[in-house]
């Protein structure tokens, strides 16, 4: 499901709202979530999950083209922890063991 499909699916249930309002709403939600992470504000959506930043320490990497060593500074990366309801629903159908 892409962002435009998500917009269509929400719009189908919200027939009283113009599709462009649903589109604007989805974009605003994603932008607000991004802004939260940009300032290291945790996002907590009950039943869905939480987003936080995790710190990755500095390391020495290599330029894959030249093989040259490059010092990479520490950085923050977004992390998502699925909530209970999402975990259970995704896992509801049995997983095939091979």
């Amino acid at each position: 499901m892409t962002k435009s499909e998500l917009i269509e699916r929400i719009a189908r249930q919200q027939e009283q709202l113009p599709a462009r309002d649903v589109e604007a709403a989805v974009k605003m939600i994603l932008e607000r979530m991004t802004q939260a992470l940009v300032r290291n504000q945790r996002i907590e959506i009950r039943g869905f999950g939480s987003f936080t930043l995790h710190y990755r320490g500095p390391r020495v990497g290599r330029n894959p083209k030249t093989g040259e060593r490059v010092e990479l500074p520490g950085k923050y990366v977004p992390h998502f922890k699925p909530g209970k309801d999402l975990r259970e629903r995704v896992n509801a159908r049995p997983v095939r063991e091979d």
Partner: protein
Amino acid sequence: MAALTKADLAEMLYQELGLNKREAKEIVEAFFEEIRRALENDEQVKLSGFGNFDLREKRSRPGRNPKTGEEIPISARRVVTFRPGQKLKARVESYAGGE
């Protein structure tokens, strides 16, 4: 700083988009519910500029009750992983506010 919640997102849609409070709440609810439903149906979710929610299947493996030390098998399961997109990664990477 308090966490961002569904109530904050609904308030934003009410204030900035002019939806009424019920519509704003329903859209926020539907946003997360449609993502959950797609994942429940084994459908990957790709939100460009933000990131992808992928599904991974894990085999069963031996586990242990950390309190009692007793061995208990962990069953095979399907899990959701989030892969942040390039744009989101670039925007958070330089966070330097401390904490």
